């Protein structure tokens, strides 16, 4: 018997080949994701993946898990409903930088604030891949995008700093070059109780790389390798990214805070007394 690629059991193989371009980092992210959840202590049936719209948003559609391809920018509130209606589920949001931080930025900061128990995996390719390479809130200054033909002039978010200030309990950044660390980090994030956030810098050669003369996917991966330094515990104020500059990777934040439901149940029990049955889902 031919051996099997270890990820295929977790993929909807009837949909492979996927739509992603040659040299796109998204497939690599899927590999790391599957490997991470395979080694997690969470039963597969209880894992749900929620995506928004975008190239990254297609992740949900390739993963053989309960998976939801929702609307642009809104995977987090969908995930919130899913999680709160059945807290036994482990809900993982996989989506793009534009989806999560342009249109979806408010949902991100609010879910972080509430410390809703979920993991956000943001594939940051510095652009809107799906719609043809427009500027996003993570595009570095100077970078060319289809809507900034003379170079971007808006300062990008420092996602790690934003996540920390909003309340995330786990914040890490890796690139698609750092596959081993990424697998470990996704696993940690998924197992963490509370709002965890992993940013993955990933090549979009077709729309970001080419336009900015960064070469193909492979060249971009090489650049990730060369330009990144690992600084676990780095001060998030200092890990902002710029065009062609260094990339600080690592686990920046790992702290404890009661989750939304923990606080909720604690308070209701305190207020409503013994008659209150701690909420464990509507079913």
């Amino acid at each position, binding site marked *: 018997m031919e051996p099997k690629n270890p990820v295929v059991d977790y993929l909807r193989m009837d949909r492979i080949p996927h739509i992603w371009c040659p040299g796109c980092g998204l497939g690599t992210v899927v590999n790391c994701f599957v490997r991470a959840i395979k080694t997690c202590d969470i039963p597969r049936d209880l894992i749900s993946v929620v995506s928004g719209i975008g190239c990254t948003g297609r992740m949900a559609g390739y993963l053989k898990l309960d998976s939801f391809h*929702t609307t642009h920018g809104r995977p987090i509130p969908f995930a919130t409903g899913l999680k709160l209606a059945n807290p036994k589920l482990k809900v993982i949001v996989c989506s793009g930088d534009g989806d999560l931080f342009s249109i979806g930025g408010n949902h991100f900061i609010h879910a972080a604030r509430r410390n809703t128990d979920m993991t956000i995996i943001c594939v940051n390719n510095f652009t809107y891949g799906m719609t043809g390479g427009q500027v996003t809130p993570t595009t570095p200054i100077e970078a060319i995008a289809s809507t900034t033909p003379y170079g971007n002039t808006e300062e990008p978010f420092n996602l790690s700093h934003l996540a920390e200030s909003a309340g995330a309990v786990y914040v890490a950044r890796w690139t698609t070059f750092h596959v081993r660390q990424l697998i470990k980090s996704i696993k940690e994030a998924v197992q963490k109780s509370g709002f965890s956030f992993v940013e993955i810098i990933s090549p979009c050669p077709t729309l970001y790389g080419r336009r900015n003369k960064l070469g193909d996917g492979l060249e971009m991966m090489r650049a990730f390798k060369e330009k990144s330094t690992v600084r676990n515990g780095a001060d998030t104020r200092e890990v902002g990214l710029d065009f062609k500059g260094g990339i600080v990777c690592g686990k920046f934040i790992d702290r404890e805070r009661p989750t939304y439901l923990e606080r909720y149940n604690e308070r209701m029990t305190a207020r409503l007394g013994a008659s209150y049955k701690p909420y464990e889902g509507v079913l």
Partner: protein
Amino acid sequence: MKADPKGVMTGAHFLDGDHACCEGALAAGCRFVAGYPITPSTEVVERIAARFPAVGGMFIQMEDEIASSIAIQGAVWAGAKAMTVTSGPGFSLMMEHIGLAAMLETPCVFVNVQRGGPSTGLPTLPGQADMMQARWGSHGDYEVIAFCPNSPQECFDLTIEAFNMAEIYRVPVMLMLDECVGHMTEKVVIPEADAIEIAERRFTGAKPGEYLPYETNGNWVPPMVKAGDGHYFHMTGLTHDERGYPVMNAEAQEKCVHRIVNKIRENADAIVRLREAEIEDADVVVVSYGITSRVALKAISMAQAEGIKVGHMRLVTAWPFPENRIRRLADQGKAFVMPELNYGQMYLELERVVQGRTRSLLVPHGGGTVHDPEVIYRKIKEAVQ
């Protein structure tokens, strides 16, 4: 299925429409509500926030209406019965997700307590000008069901109906209150739990690996699953095939969207709820809904007092529009008068269906209060001339 007694506050109560709606949701088995405050709907969620913890429900005030309108869909796919509650401006923000609910066929309830519009308008005064929006406010073709209660009692009753219809047709159901009904306090009688009929969710019998989310087997409405049961199912707002996978062509579109539209259109007669009175030998039928239907009754009795033969048709469901019934009455030569708190919305449907066979008259009103019955009464007289 009968209602779960835990949620049923059996007895006679003096409640406003918003609170009655909350009680209806509880009786219907709703245990997940996501909402965002907005006058004049806020009292619904305020009561829910107070009532839910004791019955095992979860209320969350989200950061906005967009989040609320999709959080409930997440909850539904985790197995909950869910609703959100809003008013005009928030309803406008929910449009994208009403389309999502139609496309995924997520059974859920959207409550819109209508106020004066457009824009911020008259937050604390009544209107009925979101009726066309309820039907057409999202992009693309789809269908919905919309109920229009005219009293706190009906706010209770029809909230249950709304949840039931949502389950039966897997469709987003709109509960279109108006400020007057929402903020009006009257007696509401809540029956025993076992006198309340609840439509249970139809879950698939398929084993994991065999379930196809949109396999209909000739039925209009496919069965459901929920996350966590090992089906590894996929949902997408893209045009999809039976597996729920995106397919980008006109054939898939026709198959996917036409059924979504037709499951309502073809079942319209089963869905439509009307309350009719003295229609049979009427010369004029006053068609109305929501608070206006009460004012219309006052006008009708004024006209009847003069010997005019007036019947009353109340749209308990506004969508789907009771096309067949109206057409039949038009064929019988009856004239129509339709008062609404808008400048002509449902009336356009009436006019379309009547097809000029008999007279049909609109009694428009910009909202902010209800009609003067006198004005309706005069139109009734005009209709019989």
